[in-house]
């Protein structure tokens, strides 16, 4: 058990060292979300006057959605590192060592989680500077981070599993884009539920991206329905655990293909 945890820690440390060598990577991952947040926030400033919006600023409304969307993209790319490791023969080297697949995946997910937290805090900070108010304060921010982290973990696992199954960057990019945009638009990321067409509202109830944005928005704005929040945090946790488990199974498929 302790070997499983310590080796996972060393795997995380490997990613962190690579990250520390090119910290501008963080800036690159934030360029798009910041543009979405500030540009959309200002261009559609007046949209909050529509009935159905409960917030005073669109940036404040948008911020939790952008936090979640950024986590989706950023975790979606986590499989790219696996494809590189496969091409380089690094993964094969790890797979003939006594380290467990669970530790390899766990270490990667821990790193991806840290990156998600960092990005989320920066986006929330920028939103706050641009005039968003988060009435939910500390507990609201924590709940938003937790929901984002769980969704990010599920998505990183999806990406890692695909990397092991497909072993090609192009296909991985296509499969990630195939999910991120539709899931984002079939949710309350940009519009409140009351203003969404009926069929989208129905679908969004089954959309984990919607759960994460709802939980984050409710908690940040201090209007949490705690029944909804706890149920959907639990669902997100289940989803994350299931995806993480399935991604460790993908090692078996990888071994059979090579």
């Amino acid at each position, binding site marked *: 058990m302790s070997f499983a945890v310590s*080796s996972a820690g060393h795997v995380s440390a490997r990613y962190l060292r690579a990250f520390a060598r090119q910290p501008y990577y963080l800036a690159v991952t934030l360029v798009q979300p910041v543009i979405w947040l500030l540009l959309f926030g200002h261009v559609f400033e007046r949209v909050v006057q529509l009935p159905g919006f409960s917030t005073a600023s669109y940036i404040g409304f948008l911020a939790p959605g952008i936090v979640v969307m950024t986590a989706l993209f950023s975790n979606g790319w986590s499989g790219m590192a696996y494809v590189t490791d496969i091409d380089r023969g690094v993964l094969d080297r790890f797979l003939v060592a*006594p380290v467990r697949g669970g530790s390899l995946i766990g270490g990667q997910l821990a790193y991806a989680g840290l990156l998600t937290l960092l990005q989320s805090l920066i986006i929330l900070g920028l939103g706050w500077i641009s005039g968003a108010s988060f009435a939910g304060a500390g507990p609201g921010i924590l709940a938003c981070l937790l929901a984002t982290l769980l969704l990010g973990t599920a998505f990183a696992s999806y990406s890692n599993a695909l990397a092991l199954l497909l072993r090609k960057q192009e296909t991985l990019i296509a499969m990630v884009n195939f999910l991120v945009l539709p899931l984002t638009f079939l949710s309350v990321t940009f519009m409140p539920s009351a203003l969404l067409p009926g069929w989208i509202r129905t679908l969004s109830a089954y959309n984990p991206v919607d759960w994460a944005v709802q939980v984050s928005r409710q908690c940040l704005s201090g209007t949490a329905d705690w029944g909804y929040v706890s149920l959907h945090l639990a669902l997100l946790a289940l989803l994350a655990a299931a995806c993480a488990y399935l991604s460790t199974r993908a090692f078996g498929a990888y071994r059979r293909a090579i």
Partner: protein
Amino acid sequence: MTNATVTAGAATLGPGLAIEAVGLTKTYPGGVRALRGLSLQFPLGSIFALLGPNGAGKSTAVKVLTTLSRPDSGGARVAGYDILSEAEAVRRAIGVVSQKPAGDLDATGWENLMLQGHLYGLAGAELKRRAEQLVEVLSLGEVVNRIVKTYSGGTQRKLDIAIGLVNRPRVLFLDEPTTGLDPDARAEMWETISRLAREGLGVLLTTHYLEEADQLSDRLAIVDHGEIVAEGTADELKHELRGDSVSLQLTDEPPPDSVEAALAAIDGLLNDRSYEAGWLRARVDNGPTALPALLAALDGAGVRVSSASVARPSLDDVYLSHTGHAYNALQEN
């Protein structure tokens, strides 16, 4: 430090088989039959070479024996452990240097060595000592603190071997360790590998180079289409071939028909012969007596010879007799 043994502990385990594989088969999804009943065995403290052309199945054999992938049928014990039922124990007992350089490019050599140790449960001062020792043995020197991306091919290969040795393996797999190295780097690598075997390690080496298998290995096997077609020491394999090997360089590259016609009349000419790019190679029962007859026959047929030599069979002749094609000609395809 320079005299430190690289494999402390391995020698004290006494003699035993490094690898014992029986009837390994493996068909890839898509239907390529990469292994068709491959069997081999050799003891610890020796070097065994798998020699074969591209696609022969050498890397597949390494993947199966190192527990990376599973065979469809057949089985093997590596360092005494079963690759299927005791995969974990096999992993702890082996070091693997795969065909592709497998260092993490974005980390330093030292960080690579440390991570490798951690993945085997090593840590602290013990791991550090071990890594320092390997830096010394493979003469990596200061380079070890640079990012691997900046390494030359030869240095990357040395790092690969250091990485493969971190866990003090008893059996080391080297998949084409010297492909792409310059002659100096190759000679240095050969020296390191023989030293490892002298210290008690069992080494399975794959190679394209006849010369490498000839010089470095205690025993070797020729692999073709997923099977071993010949196995023994280099000398045994050469002695199995009757007679001597004759090489003649023909002036003006005459057409094969006329060469063949001239040879038809000669006694004691064995079946293994090849004629390519002006070079006629043949095996004869007794070189010194056959050579004059050969020269006379060719002369009579109007084929002129610019040089001639007689030698004991080489590994290339062994290869030719077992696979029906000359090794070097095959390599160029």
